[in-house]
């Protein structure tokens, strides 16, 4: 039965997350945007609260919620609204508050998503409940993650990692770093595995923290791995190099996390739209949904166009998460959601500044900050162009060698 409303059972979670966004994030938004690299200590207490929320079953608000098929038995044909959907909803609310602060939330890193997605029961036991960042990108390998040069060599009971990693979100603050490295660079994608590295491992050296356009509350770290030794058990997934399965294992995480980043974009877009509407209404411009867009002021027509894109982005995101909840393959929908939400978020945030003029551009309002924050959401976890590639390959039935 087609119904695209937010289920009632998630209302408490949504309003809780909204409260956090309003009461905790928004008041410190400006502060940590200005004081880049300062640790937002206000988040520590909050993180415990969210851990508690996650414990409460299928209403997770963070990265822990993306594990598939772990929600118990389902009837054939039964419709499930589970942790993927609730996580997306929670993230939308929190990023309506502040996306930089959400990214700084202890124990909610993308590394946590990777662990939640592919870790064995033993690994979950050992690494669960700790803050994990994700280290994929290298100076010479961004979107082309198959080109990474960091290597992992088995030496007895340990892997030895060597290489350089950049753009590690929460890399300085996290307790664990999930590092992507190749077991054998001659074997291409299939040899790329992820390894859990303790932040205090002496082989892991912090080079510097980046200064950024937006999400300045979140630290972005660059590392060198020099003879960094980790136990054999730190490898996530299978140690076999299965050239048939190719990249699938490592990439599996992304089918689950792309909707989460899309959700961040939806949250930022909504924040911009809501504030813009308030400012427009204050200026005497009312939005009338019943009247045709083009017989209203140009500002209204523009607003409606942006809001329509927002609605599409939001629904695509919920759809992708819902498919994951129902154990349906959602790689296509996840990329569609990420592509649409990423570009919509940027267009909306920048468009809202124009509608609000100096008020939108000035630092008294948060609109300019949201527009700076927005841009990363169309870049990390797969750029706009990478999402379009994934979508195109699926729609056209093409391999990555045919459509490069």
């Amino acid at each position, binding site marked *: 039965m087609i119904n695209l409303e937010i289920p009632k059972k998630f209302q408490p979670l949504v309003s809780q997350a909204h409260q956090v966004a309003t009461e905790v994030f928004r008041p410190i938004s400006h502060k940590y945007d200005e004081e880049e690299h300062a640790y937002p200590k206000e988040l520590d207490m909050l993180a415990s609260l969210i851990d508690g929320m996650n414990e409460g079953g299928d209403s997770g608000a963070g990265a822990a919620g993306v594990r598939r098929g772990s929600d118990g038995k389902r009837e054939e044909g039964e419709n499930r609204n589970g942790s993927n959907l609730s996580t997306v909803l929670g993230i939308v609310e929190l990023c309506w508050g502040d996306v930089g602060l959400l990214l700084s939330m202890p124990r909610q890193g993308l590394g946590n998503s990777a662990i939640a997605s592919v870790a064995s029961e033993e690994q979950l036991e050992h690494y669960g409940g700790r803050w994990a960042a994700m280290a994929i990108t290298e100076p010479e390998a961004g979107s082309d993650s198959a080109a990474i040069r960091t290597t992992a060599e088995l030496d007895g009971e340990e892997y030895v990692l060597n290489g350089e990693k950049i753009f590690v979100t929460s890399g300085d603050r996290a307790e664990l770093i999930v590092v992507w490295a190749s077991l054998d660079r001659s074997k291409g994608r299939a040899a790329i595995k992820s390894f859990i590295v303790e932040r205090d491992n002496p082989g892991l050296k912090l080079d510097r923290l980046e200064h950024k356009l937006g999400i300045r509350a979140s630290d972005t770290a660059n590392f060198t791995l020099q003879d960094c030794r980790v136990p054999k058990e730190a490898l996530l997934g299978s140690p076999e190099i299965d050239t048939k399965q190719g990249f699938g294992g490592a990439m599996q995480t992304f089918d689950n996390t792309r909707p989460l980043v899309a959700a961040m974009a939806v949250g930022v877009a909504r924040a911009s739209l809501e504030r813009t509407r308030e400012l427009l209404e204050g200026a005497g411009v009312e939005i009338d949904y019943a009247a045709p867009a083009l017989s209203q002021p140009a500002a209204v027509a523009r607003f409606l166009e942006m809001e*329509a894109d927002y609605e599409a982005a939001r629904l695509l995101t919920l759809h992708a998460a819902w498919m994951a909840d129902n154990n349906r393959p959602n790689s296509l929908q996840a990329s569609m959601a990420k592509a*649409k939400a990423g570009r919509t978020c940027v267009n909306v945030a920048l468009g809202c500044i124009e509608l609000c003029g100096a008020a939108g551009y000035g630092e008294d309002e948060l609109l300019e900050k949201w527009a700076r924050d927005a841009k990363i959401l169309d870049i990390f976890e797969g750029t706009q162009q990478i999402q379009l590639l994934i979508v195109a390959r699926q*729609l056209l039935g093409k391999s990555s060698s045919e459509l490069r």
Partner: protein
Amino acid sequence: MNRNGKGVAERSMGIGLRTLNWLAGSSLLDRIKARRQVERALFRTSKEGFRTATAAGRTFKAVQKLARPARQAAGKPRALFDVTPDEEQQMFQEAVRDFAAAEVRPAAQAADAERATPAELLAKVDELGVNMLGVPEELGGAMHEQAAVTSVLVGEALAHGDLGIAYAALAPGAVATAIGHWGTAEQQATYLPAFSGEDVPTAALALLEPQPLFDPLKLETKARRDGSDWVLDGAKSLLARAADCELFVVAAEAEDLGPALFAIESGAAGLATEPEPAMGLRPAASGRLLLEGVRLPGGAMLGEGGRDAYSECVQRARLAWSAVAVGTSQAVLDYVIPYVNERSAFGEPISNRQAVAFAVSDIGIETDGMRLAVYRAAGRADQGKDFTREAALARRLCAAKGMTIGSEGVQLLGGHGFVKEHPVERWYRDLRAAGVMEGALLV
């Protein structure tokens, strides 16, 4: 026909052209500021002949009037987020999908060229029962509860075959739905039985007017009171099969009441239609309805709800047009995929190029977004929730993205897309309608 034996029409066209040339060169027209009107009239006349009175329709008589009008119930609020249609909806969807592929798509090109949909094809659509979705069960309808979602699925599936034929076929259903939702007991008893019979009347829900920046809440068609009667004056645009219509439901600004709907049977004095051919929607043989002092009894106004009901009618129509835009956008996607995979340039399929492949991605992404927005609004309508905002957003999305998708569909085929050997040029023309049309279809 040989060169010397020119047909009468052709010869008189020759004479007309000479006159035309003289007129065109004369500054008289410009001085009286009548050039535009004269040119338009000449263009029409040469193309379509003259205005005609409305079709001689059947006589509608009330049978078995209920004590009060029957209404479909709102569905229960749903507990969970779900994008899967229920079993009954899937049944409709599959039946219409199959029909669209087997019967509609093959007939589309000819229907577009001839500006008419074959009567047999229209009869077959009626047999599917899709025009009764908005009619309460007590009055012969199929659905006990409100069926906006089902109507959306039907519109989408039929328009995947062809948007213009979908318009021609579903337009009578809009009138049945309007009377089902807002008609008085008398109107329901008078008109709805005919829609559940074998010979469904041709009918049109007329909101759109010819002026630019048309706003359905600010109508130029006026209904003034005269004793207990209403007298209507105005013009309505782009009605499907206007010349054949036996029944119209017309929106007019009613004196002291604001916009309202009126049921008008064809043949009423002062009612005339004229052809209004357009860029697309050609299988629907679009026409204009002209009302000059059309006198109606007080009971002709659709009964209940006043302004809110009228506003709901506007929203439901926007959703219906959005739904057909989704179906045709999907048709574009399904057509360009094999084309760009097979079309070779520079030694490989053009789909190996990102510029081409990304255009396909965007069609896919926006079509899915449009679909979900339409489903959401329709789902709210069926549950009795306000859906004004959701319908407006779906409409904006489908108007803008539908247009772009129509354009990209032609672009991806290049010059081949521009010629009528492929359907994409037709979809380019039809998809523009989603941003223009008001009324005419309903969910």
